[in-house]
Each structure stands twice: as structure tokens, then as C-alpha cells.
């Protein structure tokens, strides 16, 4: 017979207004094992875990911990029952030491010294027992992202957690750091810790978990032993139809150089070097992928290439126009040069949440015909344009008058991409093409990018998803700390070497 599960959920329901986010979910998390929960964005994974962690209250259903029915009204209840959560975004005080962060909220008395000494002893014990070594006196700001995540895990263990929930833990890690994380999780498992891993990356599910639940539209649609399934099956279960994970594309036929950067640099007003002597060439008919851990200058590179920020050094040539510190450009001019830009953060940059979809569909092109004639916006023409974009890029629902914020992430992204591609650009810059986008839409977006490459467009893709870079790019450029640390043709790239370059080692 089966042992009592660490966590048992039965018939969990949760609605937000008219949105039924979780519909009657029942699942059991085995003690001392790693259980994965996969699903697309909006499938209800995070809502479900927030219920377990006491952030939301379920409308119906029961939570049992070690067989005992429990009520989780807030995270304190969850912590008291040994549940700990490691969030995607770290909750650490940068200027505090590891030890100080550890005792935050559990100081153990009005004077810090006693608490700190006790914490130091406990930290040493945890480090020994779980193999989680961190210098207790190091400042958080001086630690790498992987080490910071280790501190987050320690924080949770320090509070006595026996059940660990990790929400998209690899989002900010290099492949090497991810492997390290999985080794830590394996050690924790050996010591009897129960682990729940929430992710949308199938590779990680296959690598780390013992058992996996698949969620779709607020329901559990399948549970599998990891050893008895494969990524193709999981993808199909997540999306509800067959998905091709491999992207078919012909060899690139690269032509003339359309964009080139020479010693391009950007120094901000505090004197921080954000971009450091970037040399880059973009040719017609090729896709260049920029790989790197988020925050290593990719955002700034896109800003400079698209004319949003002026470079402070070096020069940039876009289809013959030379841009440098003294001859800056702007996004409007870049558009006239045939450069289109799908920004990294569609909500903050690529669209206006409060605008109708038809208004979003002309952002940046509002002053040009056919949208503007005789100084007036041609409403019907813009409406027809938006409807055409929606048809061609399968944006759902097909409602030009709907507010932009009411579309799902994937459909917003398709709308922004459609807008930029409709201009038939010569150079296309794409930041995080599939962030927060479901698998079905990823497939579509990738195919469209390859299609526009085949029509002779020079495409630059910036992504923190290494898989995406590997499957899309013809040439891969790696960035670290504002510099380019390596360039490899896609055929000769593998995750290990790219990972080393992403961590700053020159190839």
C-alpha cells in the first residue's frame, strides 16, 4: 500500500470574478520525492500553489498535510506546517549579509547578537547536512544569482520547512547553475525533503522530477511517472494537441550586411559601463541569437540598436545611416530605415494596456499612411488593418475594439509581432519573443520569424531561453556584463560551452 502523501489536495476550486482559475483539482505529492507541475501560462499552476501556501483561500476543496486536514489562511500557517516557498523573484535584502537575511523575520529576541549566533550554528548544520555551502558573512549583492537562490532555499529550510515549493527556479540561472540547483534538490530529496517544482520547461521536468502532473485550463489533465513519459507527450498534454518541438528550417542564405556595430558602448550617468565595445554584424537572411543571463546588457543593446538610447561610444550603421554619440537616431527614424523592434517587455513598452487593440496595432506607425491621411487618423482603415493582422497571426479573440490588456500574453505578443512584421522590415529586432507565451503560440511565433528570415530580413533575437536561441538562431552571440564573450555558428553550439560563456568565460 502507498504511504501517506506529504500533501493531498482534493476538489480545489478557485474563481476570480468570472474567471474559473482552478477547477476541482485533486493531487497527491509523495513524501521525500520531487514532484513536477507543468502547464502553460495561465493553466492555474501558480494559483494552485498560492492556495497551498496560504496566499489565496480556495472556494472549495480540502488540503491535507501528512493526512491531516489543514486550513491555510496565510503564509504563516503554511510555514508552521513545514511548507516553504522559493519565489521566482528573490526576496532578499541586497545590502545585508547572508546571515542577516536568514534571521529576517525570525530574529529571536530584541537583541540581534543572540539570534545571529544561533543562526550561524544552524546554518553550519544545514550546510553540512544538505551540502549547501554559502559564506554566512558575504553580502547578498556580492553573490552570484545561483548563490542567492541557495540563500533563498536556506532561508526556507532555516524556518524548518520539510516541503519545498520552487516556482520557476531556473528562470534566472545559467545552464550550469541550473544543473547545480538540481544536484542540490537531489541531495535535499535524499535527506527526506519533499519538493514541488513548478516550471514550463519540459527538459527540467525530465531531468529532475520523479512524478509529474500536467495542468491545462485549471485542471489536472494527466499525471505520469517521469520515467514513463517523454517531452513530446507532456507538450501534447499541456497544449491539448500535437506540438512540434523541433523547428524545421532550411540553411540560411545570408546576404549583405544591414546593421553593423563597431565598438558600440553605453555608459550611464553614474559611469557604469552597460555596453562595452560591442562588435556585431547582422546580415540579410539570417537570424542572430543573443544568449545570456538576463541583465547582462541585452536590454541596453536593444535600446541602442532601436534608437531609444544614444550610444556613448563607437558607431552603429543601419542600412547606410551612421549613428554615434554625436549623430543620434530615434525610434521614428529607425522605422523609416526599415528597422522594426518587438520589445522585450510588451506590456511596458510594446503596447498601451488601456488602448483598444486597434490602437495598439499602429503604435509607432500612427503618423504614416494609410493610418493617417490629411492629418487625421483613418479609424476604419486602422480597424481593417488590425483585423487583418489578427487574422494573419491568429490573435484571439478577433476583437479590434477589445482593450489590449484583456488579451492573454501570447495573443498580445502575436499582435505586437504582427504589427512589426506587417511593415515588412529589413531589420527585425526581437526581445524575448516568447516570454509568457504558451507553447502553441511559441511554435507559431518561431515559424513566423524563420519565414521573415527566408524573405531576406535580418533578424536579431534576444532571449534568456537557451533552448529558444538554439532552435532559432543561425549564429549565436553570447553576452556577459555588457560584453560579447563569444560567437558560435548554431551548428557547433552546445549548452555547455554557451553556459560557460554566459558565466563570463571567454571561448
Amino acid at each position: 500500500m502507498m504511504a501517506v502523501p506529504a500533501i493531498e489536495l482534493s476538489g480545489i476550486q478557485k474563481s476570480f470574478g468570472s474567471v474559473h482559475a482552478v477547477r476541482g483539482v485533486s493531487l497527491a505529492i509523495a513524501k521525500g520525492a520531487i514532484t513536477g507541475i507543468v502547464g502553460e501560462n495561465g493553466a492555474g499552476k501558480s494559483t494552485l500553489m498560492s492556495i497551498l501556501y496560504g496566499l489565496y483561500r480556495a472556494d472549495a476543496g480540502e488540503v491535507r498535510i501528512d493526512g491531516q486536514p489543514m486550513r491555510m489562511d496565510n503564509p504563516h500557517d503554511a510555514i508552521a506546517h513545514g511548507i516553504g516557498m522559493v519565489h521566482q523573484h528573490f526576496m532578499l535584502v541586497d545590502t545585508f549579509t547572508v546571515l542577516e537575511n536568514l534571521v529576517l523575520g525570525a530574529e529571536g529576541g530584541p537583541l540581534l547578537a543572540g539570534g545571529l549566533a544561533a543562526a550561524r550554528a544552524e546554518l553550519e548544520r544545514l550546510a553540512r547536512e544538505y551540502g549547501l555551502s554559502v559564506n554566512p558573512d558575504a553580502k547578498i549583492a556580492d553573490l552570484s544569482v545561483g548563490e542567492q537562490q541557495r540563500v533563498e532555499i536556506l532561508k526556507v529550510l532555516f524556518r524548518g520547512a520539510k516541503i519545498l515549493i520552487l516556482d520557476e527556479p531556473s528562470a534566472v540561472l545559467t545552464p550550469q547553475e541550473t544543473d547545480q540547483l538540481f544536484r542540490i534538490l537531489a541531495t535535499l530529496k535524499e535527506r527526506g525533503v519533499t519538493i514541488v517544482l513548478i516550471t514550463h520547461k519540459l527538459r527540467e521536468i525530465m531531468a529532475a522530477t520523479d512524478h509529474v502532473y500536467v495542468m491545462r485550463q485549471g485542471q489536472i489533465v494527466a499525471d505520469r511517472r517521469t520515467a514513463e513519459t517523454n517531452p513530446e507527450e507532456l507538450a501534447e498534454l499541456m497544449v491539448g494537441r500535437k506540438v512540434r518541438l523541433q523547428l524545421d528550417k532550411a540553411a540560411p542564405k545570408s546576404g549583405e550586411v544591414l546593421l553593423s556595430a563597431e565598438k558600440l558602448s553605453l555608459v550611464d550617468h553614474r559611469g557604469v559601463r552597460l555596453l562595452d565595445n560591442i562588435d556585431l554584424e547582422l546580415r540579410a537572411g539570417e537570424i542572430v541569437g543573443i544568449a545570456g543571463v538576463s541583465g547582462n546588457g541585452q536590454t541596453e543593446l536593444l535600446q541602442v540598436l532601436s534608437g531609444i538610447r544614444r550610444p556613448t561610444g563607437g558607431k552603429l550603421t543601419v542600412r547606410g545611416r551612421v549613428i554615434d554619440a554625436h549623430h543620434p537616431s530615434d525610434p521614428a527614424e529607425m522605422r523609416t530605415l526599415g528597422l522594426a523592434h518587438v520589445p522585450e517587455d510588451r506590456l511596458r513598452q510594446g503596447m498601451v494596456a488601456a488602448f483598444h487593440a486597434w490602437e495598439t496595432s499602429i503604435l509607432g506607425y500612427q503618423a504614416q499612411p494609410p493610418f493617417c491621411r490629411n492629418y487625421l487618423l483613418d479609424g476604419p482603415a486602422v480597424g481593417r488593418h488590425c483585423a487583418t493582422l489578427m487574422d494573419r497571426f491568429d490573435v484571439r479573440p478577433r476583437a479590434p475594439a477589445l482593450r489590449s490588456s484583456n488579451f492573454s500574453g501570447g495573443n498580445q505578443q502575436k499582435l505586437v509581432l504582427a504589427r512589426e512584421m506587417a511593415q515588412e522590415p529589413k531589420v527585425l529586432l526581437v526581445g524575448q519573443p516568447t516570454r509568457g507565451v504558451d507553447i502553441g503560440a511559441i511554435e507559431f511565433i518561431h515559424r513566423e520569424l524563420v519565414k521573415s528570415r527566408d524573405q531576406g530580413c535580418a533578424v536579431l533575437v534576444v532571449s534568456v531561453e537557451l533552448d529558444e536561441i538554439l532552435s532559432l538562431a543561425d549564429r549565436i552571440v553570447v553576452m556577459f556584463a555588457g560584453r560579447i564573450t563569444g560567437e558560435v555558428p548554431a551548428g557547433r553550439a552546445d549548452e555547455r560551452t554557451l553556459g560557460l560563456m554566459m558565466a563570463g568565460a571567454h571561448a
Partner: protein
Amino acid sequence: MNGRRPLPAWAEIAVLPLVNIALAFITVGIIVRIIGVDPLHALQFLVVGAIGSSESIGYTLYYTTNFIFTGLAVAVAFHAGLFNIGGEGQAYIGGLGCGLAILAFDRYLPAPLMIPLAILAAALFGAAWAAVPAWLQAWRGSHIVITTIMFNFLAAALMVYLMVNVLIAPGSMTPQSRNFAASGKLPSMHDTLAAIGIQVAPSALNLSIVLAVLCCIGVWVFLWHTPWGYALRTMGHNPEAAVYGGTNLRHMTMLAMCISGGLAGFVGVNELMGVHQRIVLDFPAGYGFAGIAVALMGRSHPVGIVLAALLFGALQQGGAELAFEIPTITREMVVVIQGLIILFSGALVNMPRPWLQRLFTLRGS
């Protein structure tokens, strides 16, 4: 969250403001009761005073004209994400521009040339007065709320100086300019209507109200049907998206504030060219500030602003009558009433929203 739905658009536009006004009037009623006046009696004087005769309607519309100008001024800046508190000063300086143009040319130009020139001067001066804080924000990072407030004081001080030392009519004891010549007078509404055979009682209402209606249409077309209005609204909602879309935020800040200041400047047209017939002190009389409440209540949309301006105009006119008819209700009491309306429809505008949402959710399920 909490299972509450957002209000349907029609309720947002129509029901919410009405609930706010009703709450304000109930509060006013309680206060009026406390000072010993029958609230219904007072309300009757207020309503009759505002719309009881063609003369009172004329005055209500004359006040409404000012509120439309300043309400539109605040709204245009607001759509750009800018809080223009300087309508008062911009109206004042707009009036100065209007007056200077007339004093300079009224003896040489006929009315058909003089009037457009004076209107243009009002807009240019108002815009210029708004352009300075705009420039300070766009290039030097000084917050526009602070600078526009300070520019109200500067405008007031400048006008006192000019009126006492420079523009005062020779031999006059009061600080006001010489009278405008006939070509510098904007025809009154009763004269204009009489010319086409409609008789109405004389009032301060003049053709400025036509200008106000044209401004409403102009603002509506500009904001929602031109690429510049589109870019302006983009900046207001999401400056980063505006930059991405190729808008220069500095230039757009200047444009938005100049349009805003120009609209506020038209108060000078209504007051000086339409009524006083000379430059006087203190003619903006709080219209610039009330414009904030008008824009807030009118949801920064021209149609809403017209409705809100009508309410404020009626209160201004009806309130004056009320103070005249019931001695216990003083001029200050009328200001309290206006203040409460502004409080409920401005600062407390979102207070009844959860109640209404609950009501609509119940009804819907």
C-alpha cells in the same frame, strides 16, 4: 478581486458621477439644516436661481463657458499624464495677451480682424505661460505640479504690477486699463440673437460660448483622431511605450502644456472681451482651479466636461441667487457647497465604486 466585477462603461460614465453628486447634495442638505434653513427651500432657490429665467440661464451659461475652457485645459494635460495646476495663471496671462492685443490695435482694426487677433493673442499668451513650466519639466526635471502652482502666484504678482504701474488708464484711481473700443468687444448673446429675431433677457453671456463649443470639438478631434493626440495619450498612459513608438517626450510635454495653457487663456476672452471691456484684476476668480474638478468629474472627456461645467455654472449662478435670497446662507456658505461637490466628485470619486460594483455583481448573478 473578491469576485467583484468592474463597472460597465455606461455606469462608469453616467451612474457614478450622479451618485457622487447626490451624496454631495445630501451632505450639503444636512449642513444647511444645521444652520436652520429648510434644505428643500434652499434647493428651490438654487435651482430657480440657476435656470428659472432666460436671464439666469444666460448667466449660468456664461459661467459654464469659463469652466469648459479650464476643464478642457486640465483634461488635455491630464491625457498626457501631466497635472496642470496652473490654469489660473494661464487664464490670467491669456487675458493679458487678449487685452494687450486689443489696446494696441482696437483703434485701427475692424471687429472681424480684431476679434480673431485678440483670441489668438489670448491663446498664445496662455500657452507661453504654460510653456515655461513645461520646459522646466521636460529639460530640467522640475515637477510640473510645483512649477505651475508657483506660476499662478507669479501671474498674479505680474498682473498687479502691470495694472498699477503700466496699464492703468491715465487719471484712473482703480487699477484697470482704458475701455476697449467697439471693435474689441465680443458681441453678447442677447444682441446676436436679437439680430436674428430671438428676444432673450440681457446677461453676461457672449459669443465665447461658441468658441468653447468649438474647443470641445477641437479637443475631441485632436485627442482621438489625430496621430499627435494618439501619441499624447500614449505618453499619458505609458511613457516608455511612447518613446518606443518614436515620440519625443520633451516635445510632446511642450505640445500638451501649450494646448492646455492656450485653452485656459480663453477665459480671458470670455471675461475681458466678452464682459469687462477692459483689463481688470482678479478676473480668473478661481476658474482655473475649479477646472481641475470639472475635468475630474467629466472624466477628461469633452462631453463629460460640458456636463460638469454646466453643473458648476449652475451652482455659481444659483449659489449667488441663494445667498441673495436667504441671508443666513452667505457667499462663503455657497463656496462650502461648491467645495463639497468638488470633494465628493473629485477626491472621493472612487468611494461609492465598491458599493456600485457589489450592486451590479448581485444584479448580474
